[in-house]
């Protein structure tokens, strides 16, 4: 921080009876008594915190005594500074940060004449240094990035569902045709993935029973809803959150007011 160019601060003195040194409180003795009270309460709370910790009291007692101790001591200290210490106001000169023209030219000259001219005289070395550093900078990122994880390849496009996969719930129990009543919903996984991270994050599917008859959602999908069962990925295409809300189980009109 010390700076030679700074004007030294004059060592000023004030007589002890100068009004700037008086407290701002109108009645300092009363304020002092109040602050003393705050500090006594603060100290008692702090001691209480020690005792509460010793006997392993409930968390709220620990927090109340710790917080009370800090708060009351803090309020006392703030009041001491605000009401009993010299009221001032005091002033400090602000000197311009900028140096004079000669100093500024000196710095610019050192950078440009003494420094840049060295590089300008040897453009080949300068170019090689710049290029080398640039390549190093890029290559240095490799271990930071490439070591961290595998390349995605096509993994985002595939799940573990295969033709003939058995549907199991989260406990691994196979789902049979008669298990779901009409209007109910269950989260299912291809058997064997229900306990894996990937199964839960990627393969999760909701199985909904809409009716007892084969259910056709649109033309050309006559066989897609056997016995009223339909299944959709549980992952929302928005942010990949699981979709856990099913209108049948919600208060009426949660989505649309009818």
């Amino acid at each position, binding site marked *: 921080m010390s700076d030679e160019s700074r004007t030294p601060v004059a060592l000023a003195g004030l007589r002890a009876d100068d009004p700037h040194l008086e407290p701002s409180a109108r009645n300092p003795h009363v304020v002092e008594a109040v602050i003393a009270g705050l500090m006594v309460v603060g100290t008692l709370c702090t001691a209480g915190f020690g005792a509460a910790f010793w006997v392993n009291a409930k968390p709220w007692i620990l927090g109340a005594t710790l917080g009370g101790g800090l708060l009351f001591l*803090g309020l006392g200290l703030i009041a001491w500074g605000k009401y009993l210490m010299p009221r001032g*106001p005091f002033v400090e000169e602000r000197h311009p940060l900028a140096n004079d023209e000669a100093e500024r030219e000196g710095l610019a000259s050192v950078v440009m004449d003494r420094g840049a001219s060295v590089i300008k005289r040897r453009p080949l070395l300068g170019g090689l240094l710049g290029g080398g550093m640039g390549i190093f900078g890029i290559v240095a990122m490799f271990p930071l990035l490439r070591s961290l994880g595998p390349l995605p390849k096509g993994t985002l496009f595939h799940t573990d569902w295969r033709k003939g996969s058995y549907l199991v719930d989260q406990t691994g129990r196979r789902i049979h045709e008669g298990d779901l009543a009409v209007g109910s919903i269950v989260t299912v996984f291809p058997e064997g993935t229900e306990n894996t991270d*990937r199964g839960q994050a990627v393969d999760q599917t909701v199985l909904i029973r809409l009716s007892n008859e084969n259910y056709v959602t649109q033309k050309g999908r006559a066989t897609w809803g056997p016995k009223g069962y339909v299944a959709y990925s549980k992952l929302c295409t928005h942010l990949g959150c699981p979709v856990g809300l099913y209108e049948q189980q919600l208060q009426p009109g949660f989505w649309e007011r009818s």
Partner: protein
Amino acid sequence: MSSEVINTKRAKQEAAGPYGKVGHALNELDDRLGVAKGGRSFLDKIFPDHWSFMLGEIALYSFLVLLVTGVFLTLYYVPSSAIVTYHGPYLPLVGQKVTQAYASTVNLSFSVRAGLLMRQMHHWACDIFVGALVVHMARIFFTGAFRKPRELNWTIGVTLLTLAIANGFLGYSLPDDLVSGTGIRIAYSIMLSIPLVGTYLAFFVFGGNFPGTAIIPRFFILHVLIVPLVILGLVGAHLALLVRQKHTQFPGPGREENNVVGSPMFPVFMAKTTGYLFGVSGVIALLGAFAQINPIWQFGPYDAARISYAVQPDWYMGFLDGALRIFPAWSFMGFGHTIPLEVTIPAVIFPGLLFGLAYAWPALERRVTGDHAIHHLLDRPSLRPKRTAAGVAVLALLSALFIASSTDVIANFFHISLNTVLWAMRVIVIVSPFVAYPITYKICKELQGVHGAGKRKTPNLVVRTDEGEYLAEPTPAYPEDVHQELEPTPVPTFIEEPEPESAAPGVRVVER
């Protein structure tokens, strides 16, 4: 040194100089480090007394609380995704398979002495830290304290806010509970949404497809070491620049461009600010004691196939969550790639623009106003109506987005359909800045014309001139409304006892 044997109390005192042992110790220090001049000028530093200068201190002190409580938490938290069976005092979880991260967080909450208090204090301190940063930033913005020569410190401040939000999110993710796990899932999807590099970035950060087992230990080391270290360094730089450039101040009697008026560092400001540190920590401790926050044992462990109702992030992520919730479902699919614009725009481009605007503001304002002068005196916000209105418009937009992060709760609470809430929030978010700007601008303009705004009104004196013209002149403010203070004086280095009236030399009693 003289060879006399110093064997009297008084002689010892005189040998030690007028300032006794402390003076001696300071001299020893100055012999080795040369601290006398710099140390005194540091203790002489003047701090303005205005209350709004204390907002940044709330941030600083809640950060200290974060460091202390955070160190406590690291002693018990286990950053691991390994699956364990929970055995502990919280009966509903007993026997469940949970990650070590989750089990250790529940454990430190229930089985470690003062563990729950420390955890809740840590969480509250974080919410207060980011809040104080935002309010502090608003003060700097609306008073023009970011202007030349302080643009660099503004830049550091915006970076600190970014890092604080990021580290808050990282820490929030560590317990691996159902709510925070959903947050990590969303962060993963946001990374995926970045065009070209997003998928690679997400796979590198998570060590593969979501969720994997790498993310908890990685978030942990970022949260407890790397980000706090950068924050700590930038806080140091922020304060060093503040000392180097000195404080700004509001204009007023005796307050000029070339001085600073207020209280000296030692002892007045030091007493107040230490008390403030205690006060801020005390309030955080009381919140930790009485206001439950993030009860992860109620949420349960993370399970990618489960979700809960009313899942809202910490308040400072609310604007992002709101933007994600209400943005229309646009996406681009083609050439074997998907770009989910519904995610990229609200969660990558929008915050990028927002923080970019914050970084660029000092330069933008310089360009628009052509004002390249150095400013140490602050603006009254009403005197800069365009800047103030722009700031309020951004705050209105962010507030509307924050409300939009609770669409599900609003729909349920008011018994209206979720889609109605969604559309209403879309309208409110777009309209709010355009309403806030002209209203603020108008209020600022009005305030400029009001004599003694914010003070009690004084009667107007109607004067009839000799020509018969009537003039209404405001009378001066009531004396008790006028801030009374002495003419500022330089901080005294020496306090001299007033000399007694009759300085007759008395007889000294020498102790033997």
